[in-house]
C-alpha cells in the first residue's frame, strides 16, 4: 500500500517535468516556423526597401535651346551642356565646367534627340524639359549619399551639392517615375539601365520552353499513365524522370553547352537555346504534375467511354485529357514559374553578356531577368544595387502572378469525384 502511494507520488512529481518538456517541444516548433517566416519577411522587406527607390529617378528641368549648329553636328549632349552653362553662368574654369556637366546623365542628349526626331519643328526653339540627372545626383536626392559626411567620403562634392540646392530652391529638380527602367535595355550607366531587354529575353526563352515542354510533357504523361505496359522499359523511364527532377540545374546548362552549342553549333546567348535548356529542365515537373492530374480522373469515366465503343485513343483524347487539363495547366504554370526564376543553366550557355539592344528574335543575343539581377548585383554602384532590388521586385511580382493564376485555376476547375 505504502509502495503504491509512493509510486503515484513519484508519477505526480514527474508529471510537472513531463509537462514542461511537452511545452518546450511545442515551443521548438513555433520557433522553427517563426524563424522561417521572419526570414522571409526580413528578406522581402530588405529587398523592397532597397528597390522601391529605383522606380523613381531624379529629373532636372533644363531650359534647352535646340540650336541648328548642335543639331547639324549631331551633338545632342552639347545642347545639354550649353543649357547647363546658362543655368549656372558664373561657373568659369574648365575643370568646374566638366564637373558641372557630370550632374546630368549622359543619356539626357538621347532624350533630346528622340524629341527632335518626333518633332523636327523644334529646331531653333527654346523649351524647358525634364531630363535625367546622373546616378550620383539621383542617390543624393534619394538620401543614399549623406550630405553631412566628409567631402572625401562621398561621391558628390560640396560644389555639386550647392548646385543641386540651387535647383532645389527653384523647384527645378524632382523625383519622377522611372519609365526608363521599363523601356530600355542594359547600360553601363545606372540611370539609363532598364530591364526591358532582360524581360524580352525571358519572354522569348519561356515561349520556346513552353512550346517544347508542354506538349512533350503531356504526351509523355499520357503515354505513361494511359498506354504504357508495366515493364522494365517504362520503369526505367519513370525512375529516370524522378531523377531528372532532382538533377542540379547547372548540369542542364552543361548539357546545353556541350550538345546545343558545341555539337549542333547553335548561336551562343540565344533565347532559343535558353528555351531548349529550360524545357529539358522543366519537363520532369510538368510530367509529374500531368500524371497526377491524369490519375485523378476516375476510371469510371474511361469505362463509360469504352462502354460506348470508344477506342483507347478516343477515350483519352475526348474524355480523360479534357478533364485532366486544368491540373496539367496548373503544373505547367508552376513549371514555367520555376523556369522564369532559373539562372544557373543560362549562365552556361552565354546568356550572361552585357547586351544593350532589346532582343527581337529567338536568335538575337539576349539575357534573362534573373541573369540581369545577377549581373547588376555585381556592379559596385549604389544605384545599380537599387535597380537590382527593383528588378527582383518585378521578377517576384511575375512569379506571384503566375502562382496565383495556378491557384485560381486549381480552385476554379478542381473537381471532386
Amino acid at each position, binding site marked *: 500500500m505504502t509502495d503504491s502511494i509512493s509510486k503515484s507520488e513519484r508519477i505526480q512529481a514527474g508529471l510537472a517535468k513531463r509537462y514542461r518538456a511537452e511545452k518546450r517541444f511545442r515551443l521548438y516548433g513555433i520557433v522553427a516556423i517563426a524563424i522561417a517566416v521572419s526570414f522571409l519577411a526580413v528578406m522581402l522587406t530588405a529587398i523592397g526597401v532597397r528597390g522601391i527607390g529605383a522606380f523613381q529617378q531624379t529629373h532636372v528641368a533644363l531650359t534647352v535651346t535646340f540650336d541648328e549648329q548642335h543639331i547639324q553636328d549631331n551633338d545632342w549632349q552639347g545642347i545639354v551642356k550649353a543649357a547647363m552653362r546658362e543655368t549656372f553662368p558664373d561657373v568659369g574654369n574648365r575643370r568646374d565646367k566638366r564637373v558641372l556637366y557630370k550632374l546630368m546623365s549622359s543619356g539626357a542628349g538621347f532624350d533630346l534627340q528622340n524629341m527632335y526626331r518626333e518633332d523636327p519643328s523644334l529646331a531653333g526653339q527654346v523649351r524647358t524639359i525634364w531630363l535625367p540627372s546622373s546616378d550620383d545626383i539621383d542617390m543624393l536626392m534619394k538620401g543614399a549619399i549623406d550630405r553631412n559626411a566628409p567631402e572625401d567620403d562621398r561621391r558628390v562634392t560640396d560644389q555639386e551639392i550647392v548646385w543641386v540646392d540651387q535647383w532645389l530652391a527653384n523647384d527645378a529638380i524632382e523625383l519622377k517615375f522611372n519609365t526608363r527602367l521599363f523601356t530600355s535595355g542594359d547600360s553601363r550607366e545606372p540611370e539609363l539601365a532598364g530591364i526591358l531587354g532582360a524581360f524580352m529575353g525571358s519572354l522569348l526563352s519561356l515561349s520556346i520552353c513552353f512550346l517544347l515542354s508542354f506538349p512533350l510533357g503531356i504526351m509523355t504523361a499520357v503515354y505513361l499513365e494511359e498506354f504504357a505496359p508495366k515493364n522494365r522499359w517504362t520503369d526505367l523511364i519513370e525512375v529516370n524522370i524522378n531523377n531528372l527532377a532532382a538533377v542540379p540545374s547547372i548540369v542542364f546548362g552543361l548539357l546545353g553547352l556541350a550538345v546545343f552549342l558545341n555539337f549542333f553549333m547553335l548561336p551562343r546567348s540565344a533565347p532559343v537555346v535558353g528555351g531548349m535548356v529550360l524545357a529539358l529542365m522543366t519537363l520532369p515537373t510538368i510530367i509529374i504534375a500531368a500524371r497526377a492530374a491524369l490519375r485523378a480522373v476516375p476510371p469510371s469515366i474511361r469505362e463509360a467511354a469504352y462502354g460506348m465503343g470508344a477506342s483507347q485513343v478516343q477515350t483519352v483524347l475526348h474524355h480523360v485529357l479534357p478533364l485532366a487539363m486544368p491540373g496539367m495547366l496548373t503544373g505547367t504554370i508552376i513549371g514555367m514559374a520555376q523556369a522564369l*526564376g532559373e539562372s544557373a543553366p543560362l549562365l552556361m550557355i552565354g546568356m550572361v553578356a552585357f547586351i544593350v539592344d532589346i532582343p527581337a528574335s529567338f536568335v538575337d543575343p539576349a539575357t534573362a531577368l534573373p541573369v540581369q539581377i545577377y549581373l547588376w548585383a555585381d556592379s559596385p554602384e549604389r544605384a545599380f544595387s537599387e535597380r537590382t532590388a527593383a528588378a527582383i521586385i518585378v*521578377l517576384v511580382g511575375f512569379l506571384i502572378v503566375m502562382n496565383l493564376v495556378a491557384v485560381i485555376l486549381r480552385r476554379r476547375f478542381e473537381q471532386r469525384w
Partner: protein
Amino acid sequence: MYVTPARRAKKAVETVIKGILIASSTVAILTTVGIVASLLFEALRFFGEIPMTDFLFGVEWSPQTAIRADQVGASGSFGAVPLFAGTLLISAIALLVATPVGLFAAIYLAEYAHVSVRNWVKPILEILAGIPTVVYGFFAALVVAPWLRGTGEAVGLDVSSESALAAGLVMGIMITPLISSLSDDVINAVPQAMRDGSFGLGATKSETIRNVVLPAALPGIMGGLLLAASRAIGETMIVVMAAGLAANLTANPLQAVTTVTVQIVTLLTGDQEFDSAKTLAAFALGLMLFVTTLVLNVIALHIVKKYREQYD
C-alpha cells in the same frame, strides 16, 4: 462505300498517335543520355590532359592557364579537393540550419497546429521554396554577409566578407521548405493507431512524437534530408553570389571557401577558348556533381518509396 474494313483509318491514326506518344516519352531518357554522354566525353578529354588522381586528390586549385603559350606558369593546377571541401562545408552549414528548422516546423504543422494555422503557414513555406535562388544570393551577399562581418567585428572575430557561413545560412533557409514538406508528408503517413496506442499508455504528445512517430517516420525523413543535401550541393546562384572564388582548404566557416558550382560558373563564363584544360575541367567538375547528386537522389527516392509502401 467509303467505310470499308480495309481502310481502317482509325487504327492507322491511332498507331501513329501511340508512336508519337512513345517517342515523346523517350525524350526524358535522351536527356539523361545526353547529360551523361556530354559530361563523360568532355571529362575524359580533361583526364587525358590532367591525370585523374591529380584532380581527385590534389589539394591545389588554380585553373588560371596562360592565354599565350609563351607565358610563364602556363599550366594551372587542378586539384579539386578544396572545392569538394568547400562544397561540403557550405552544404553542412545549410543542413545544420535546415534540418532542425524544417523538421520542427513539420512536426508542429503535422501534430500541433490548428487547421487555420496550417493553412497560413504552409503557403508561406511554399513561397520560400518558390523564390528564385538569385534572390537568395542577392540577399546573402548584400545583407547577410555584411551583417555577419559587422557582428564578427563587434565580438572581435575576423569574418570574411564572403564567408561560408553567410552562404550556408541563407542556403539553409532555402532548403528548409523542402525538408519540412517531405517530413510533413511522412509524419502524416504514420497511422493514427500508433499514436492512439501511445496516448493510451499515458504518454504525452511530445513523448509520443519522440518515441513513436519520429522513429516510424525516420526512414522517410532521412530520404528527405538526402534530397535536401543533393539540392544544397548542386545549388549554384547563392554560392556564386555570396561565396568566394579562391580555393581555400579550411574548415573554418568564417573564411571564404569556393564550391564546385562556383568554379564551373567561373570557368565557363567570360572569354575563353574552348577545348582548353580550363573549360574541360568544368565538365569534370560537372560530372562529379552529377554523380554525387545522382547517388544521393537514387538512395533518397528508394528510401522514400520503400517507406511509403510500408503503411499503405
